[in-house]
């Protein structure tokens, strides 16, 4: 019988041996390297194994089926972070010297924050799909950071728009009471200002309540919620906080179908531990769950049937985190492919891949060609919009699986953009950053990764 831990341990030992050897210093032609700051043990391992498993499965599909991206093989190495910032930075320091780095994908707000200055010096993209610093959407100030598909403010707007649609229109939000129950961390606090701002626009009342990390005890918060008698509770949780919130809601008599989960409260791992209490719970998502999409079928056929699947438990194929990992893999690979069109079918520098991400425009037709129709909608990244206007949908848990219960919904980007720009400009002023123009964005360096920061 095989298990994650055993495999991860073995993998770790092999990879450490490899890292210690000559491989670490030798430049290899026609390879594009992805350092993965993953977490396969610790409190957030379920999310880490699903997400990084999905990304690796997609890379394997590209290598096995297509022989890489236009002949350029994808390679990667994992470094265990346990979702801890200091470990994440340690992994960065260990892997930053590796040749041919395409992009970093830490899947952690804390690690991402700690890396922004470093990767900006290195000129290597930092991908924070569905999370990260909201104002990093502004590519004028954050050239190498990409909160792809959905930044926290867009998520908030999407949730409010969904509540409005449930109530029968934006005007019905007036006087409604909303509680935001957020994780006591920088991630959890990121959306506090935007809920207040949207309150001014829509006229709802809002109370924002913090749950201290890790969130395994929420009695006091839910009693306060019960006293406030809100119409909706938005759950901005992470890890164990989510099932505990759902169960405590039941314990205090709050109806679960009035709880809307955010994008990190939307997985099977968030609802299964809550049992029947989670039936009827709804959450936002940028990618659908399920394994019926052609790209997933190909992964099963080519990768898993070939014995290269990353998930030990095949039942998790098509789960929320796995599918997010696959979408993340698609976005990384397509950025490389788009950059190759300009720079040639060869190994690219980090800055060239950055250019690829800044032209990552996948319309629904291209998404369909990639076998991902319905899995996610589309993306339209530009040099100054690093989020890419991802659409969101809502899914409801029926006790066994998620069912989509809304159309694709667009957040209110026009409303959000000036706020994002203002915040980014303040950051630029504080850090003395020169605001980029489109001409600046079109220039690339051919130096690679840490070498480019050494040069500069």
């Amino acid at each position, binding site marked *: 019988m095989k*298990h*994650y*831990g*055993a495999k991860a*341990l073995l993998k770790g030992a092999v990879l450490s041996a490899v890292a210690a050897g000559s491989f670490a210093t030798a430049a290899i032609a026609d390879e594009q390297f992805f350092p993965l700051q993953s977490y*396969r*043990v*610790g*409190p957030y*391992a*379920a999310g880490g*194994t699903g997400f990084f498993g999905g990304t690796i499965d997609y890379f394997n599909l590209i290598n096995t089926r297509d022989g890489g991206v236009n002949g350029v093989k994808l390679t990667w190495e994992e470094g265990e972070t346990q979702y801890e910032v200091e470990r994440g930075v340690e992994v960065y320091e260990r892997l930053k010297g590796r040749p041919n780095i395409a992009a970093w994908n830490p899947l952690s707000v804390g690690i991402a924050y700690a890396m922004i200055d470093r990767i900006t010096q290195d000129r290597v993209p930092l991908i924070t799909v569905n999370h990260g610093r909201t104002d990093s959407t502004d590519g004028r100030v954050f050239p190498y950071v990409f909160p792809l598909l959905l930044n926290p403010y867009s998520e908030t707007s999407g949730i409010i728009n969904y509540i409005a649609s449930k109530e029968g229109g934006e005007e019905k939000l007036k006087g409604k009471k909303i509680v935001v129950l957020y994780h*006591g961390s920088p991630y959890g606090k990121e959306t506090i200002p935007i809920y207040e701002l949207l309150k001014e626009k829509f006229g709802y009342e809002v109370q*924002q*309540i*913090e*749950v*201290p*990390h*890790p969130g*395994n*005890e929420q*009695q*006091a*918060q839910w*009693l*306060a919620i*019960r*006293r406030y008698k809100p119409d909706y509770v938005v759950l901005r949780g992470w*890890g*164990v906080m989510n*099932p*505990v919130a759902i*169960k405590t809601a*039941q*314990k*205090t*008599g709050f109806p679960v179908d009035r709880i809307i989960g955010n994008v990190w409260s939307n997985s099977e*791992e968030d609802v*299964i*531990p*809550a*049992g029947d*209490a989670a039936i009827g719970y709804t959450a936002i998502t940028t990618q659908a769950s399920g394994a019926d999409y052609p790209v997933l079928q190909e992964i099963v056929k080519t990768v898993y049937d070939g014995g290269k699947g990353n998930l*030990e*438990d095949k039942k*998790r194929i098509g789960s929320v985190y796995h599918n997010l990992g696959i979408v993340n893999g698609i976005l990384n690979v397509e950025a490389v492919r788009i950059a190759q069109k300009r720079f040639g079918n060869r190994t690219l520098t980090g800055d060239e891949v950055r250019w690829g991400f800044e032209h990552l425009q996948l319309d629904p037709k291209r998404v369909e060609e990639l076998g991902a129709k319905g899995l996610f909608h589309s993306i339209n990244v530009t040099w100054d919009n690093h989020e890419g206007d991802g659409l969101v949908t809502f899914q409801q848990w029926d006790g066994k699986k998620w069912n989509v219960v809304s159309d694709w919904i667009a957040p209110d980007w026009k409303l959000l953009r000036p706020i994002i720009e203002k915040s980014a400009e303040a950051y630029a002023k504080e850090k003395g950053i020169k605001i980029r123009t489109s001409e600046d964005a079109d220039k690339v360096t051919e130096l690679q990764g840490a070498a480019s920061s050494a040069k500069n």
Partner: protein
Amino acid sequence: MESFDFPFFIEVLVGGLLSGIMYSLVAIGFVLIYKTSGVLNFAQGALLLFAALTFVSLLERGVPFWITFAVTLAIMAVIGILIERTVLRPLVNKPPITLFVATLGLAYVLEGGAQLLWGTQVHGLDLGIDDVPYVVGGVFISTFDLFAAAVAASIVLLLTIVFRYTRIGLAFRAVADDQFAALAIGLKLPVIWAAVWIAAGFVALVAGLLWGARLGVQFSLSLVVLKALPVLVLGGFDSILGAIVGGLLIGASEKLAEVYLGPFFGGGIESWFAYVFALAILLIRPSGLFGQRLVERT
């Protein structure tokens, strides 16, 4: 000014007391080890995780509930004996800090071992008790919390009977009083230590199941020790009664503080308030409310 909502106050208080019982369950495991060996067993949370993960993994493989319980208990007993043989026995007569660090290492081994053996996936655990509330005079009381309180009371009763009325209990107390004197009269320290680690394993299993039913069985279970530490500081490291009273006090005070003081501090204060409260008590009573006062002659 808004009038004081007394039923709400009662609801927060009762909810806090019942939460406190859950902390006490974890704290009792610490007390058992500390009482007989003077070791603050930092691995108690890891034991809890190991027990719950083993239990749920066997259950998911179709093993009947009570057989699963018995098998898990047997595994915890084996682990207890192994800990005594491989960790405690070689460290006899070493300073308490050495033993503490050993249990810290043990925690990593157990956490890693549990995940190596059973994987990292999150599991649901249904003990068949609905967590729906009773409404008594407008106050919501959780059925599950009442069940947990009954289980905690049963464990305390069981441990009291064992400690007071059995030979092994007498031996436990003798070792707790004075290890050297206990050795001098012929008590076998290794046997007693193994027995007490088995008992701690049993408490870990029960606490693991209750916490697992509430949180889901996942790595975060090992973090519930953070809830037990202020309970121990407050109640005393060597008193089962202290663990219960400490749990009740910590549970009630942190919930009341969160609701009534939290808004003045921006919310989310309960995690640190419990420690501040316990530290304040520590300044007045360094051994905790029920801990044995140490008298050292120089």
